């Protein structure tokens, strides 16, 4: 299988051709090592950092920003978002606090990204 990708590791944006056979993946078109790593990972198990906001309890129209600590496998993005929009958190909160630990056993935590007093 062959896939055309654009590397997002740096602003150059190399156009990659990633080919996979049974036992190996080859990356062409990259200008540096990071392109090769990106190409391989994107082929095997694409992941993204997810950022969103979570409702603050008892405060109307007031939300706190959150993010996944590390990139999350793409197929878990929607379930995570659904979970986040259902949640409510109490103030005060501190930037860096873990909101969700090991989401669906992916090993990925969700962190609060801003401190807010009551």
């Amino acid at each position, binding site marked *: 299988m062959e896939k055309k990708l654009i590397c997002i590791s740096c602003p150059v944006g190399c156009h990659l051709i990633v080919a996979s056979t049974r036992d190996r993946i080859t990356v062409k078109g990259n200008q540096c090592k990071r392109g090769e790593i990106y190409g391989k990972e994107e082929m095997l198990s694409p992941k993204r950092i997810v950022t969103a906001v979570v*409702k603050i309890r008892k405060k109307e*129209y007031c939300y706190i920003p959150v993010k996944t600590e590390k990139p999350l496998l793409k197929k878990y993005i*929607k379930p995570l*978002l*659904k979970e986040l*929009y*259902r949640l409510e958190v109490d103030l005060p909160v501190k930037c860096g606090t873990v909101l969700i630990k090991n989401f669906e056993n992916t090993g990925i935590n969700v962190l609060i990204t801003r401190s807010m007093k009551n």
Partner: protein
Amino acid sequence: MKEDCFDVAVIGAGVSGAAIARKLSLYRLKVTLIEKCEDVSFGVSKANSGIIHAGFHHKPATLKSRLEIEGNLMFEKFQQELQFPFKRVGILVAAFSYEEMKTVEKLYQQGIENNVPLIEICNRERLLELEPKLNSDVSGGLYAPTGGIIEPYRYVFALVESAMKNGVKLFTDFKVIRAGYSGGQYTITSAKGRSLKAKYVINAGGLYADEISSLFKAEKYKIFPRKGEEYLLERNSSGFPNHVIFPVPIKNSKGTLVIPTVEGTMMIGPTAEEIKDKEDVATTPENLEKVFSLAMKMIPSISKREIITSFAGLRPAMEGNDFYIDISKKASHFIQVAGIQSPGLTASPAIAEYVKDLLKKDGLKLVEKRDYDPFLKGAMVVRGRTPEEADKLIKKDSAYGNIVCRCENVSEAEVTEAIEKGHTTMDGIKFYTRAGMGKCQGGFCTYKILHLINQKAGISINKITKRGGRSTIVYDTLSDKNIK
């Protein structure tokens, strides 16, 4: 359901209807003012250029010219009573050829016959002295110092506020769809099923005066919408003139003008285009080019970079090109106030007087109230004050210290006042306070105003509109249900 019963119902809360309702509030009458939109002035009036004309554009024999002159002279008194911004900056007509100077002479003669005070013809030098930013190719022109500028919507708001203060009952979001006459009374029904009764009806329906007239089985006529596009330029614009600058008029239109607004921004326009759709207020790139090339011919330093926004308005034109203000010959106790296009704003105080006289002629008894109060306090604003004055104001009400609109320096207190006076749409608040009218066009104040409307008027966020109806601002609040 018990129906409200009025002596007079004024249909249409634009400049004409508002001025008439206010005039009638002087008398011992039960008066109602009915508006189809969510707020007053949202029809023809809000997109008016805001010129108080001097009175030289129309032929002496017309009703237009008579009411224009009378109306013009009444603005000092109105301003004193109602506290809306008004400046008599004067009007210049700039001519660029021998032929155009000939037309200027005709306008001058017309002005003299109409008794326009202090009107004069200027040679090139005199004109450039009055208005140094004019193109130096100018041949000469006309100067009418009694011309002025106002903000049309704030004028309407003030008229309506004053009318209401003196007992007039306002119904907005009341689109008349049915009318019947029996027992000396009209029953008027709205699209939303509300109804009221009135003995006399005044049709100040603007673009829809023709439809209102046929609903009441009065005269058949047709209103032709004539579109005008305008461009608003920022404060301290390079081309900002001292006077309102007119070109030499052609045919149906007074031409594309350069207007210094009372708030220091600048407007250029309008165009004049006959259209079919009474709701078509779209702007076009062709007219942008046209308006700028016409305006820049008069004042070359005008720059497109300074555009804040553009908009279009519709004039309710009629055959015959004069105002149609008369007692209906077909429907009883029905007064037509139709075809009120330029100079309708200028004429509005005189239109109100004229209509009052028609009502009297038609048998309505007019007895002045003892407790009539023509004065309004005027909205308090924090902008343009000395630090000492501003400090006093903020100490009195801390909400004056919270600037909601950073471009126009409008405070929370001013927005709150607008909401409390019933202006609960984004446009209503914008026209009342200027919040959102500046350079960022609401980029920084929209969320603050949404919250204020929500808190002060108790309207939920997804029900707040730009100008009523289905013009909601946001769709919903965050929810997991939206994720499919």
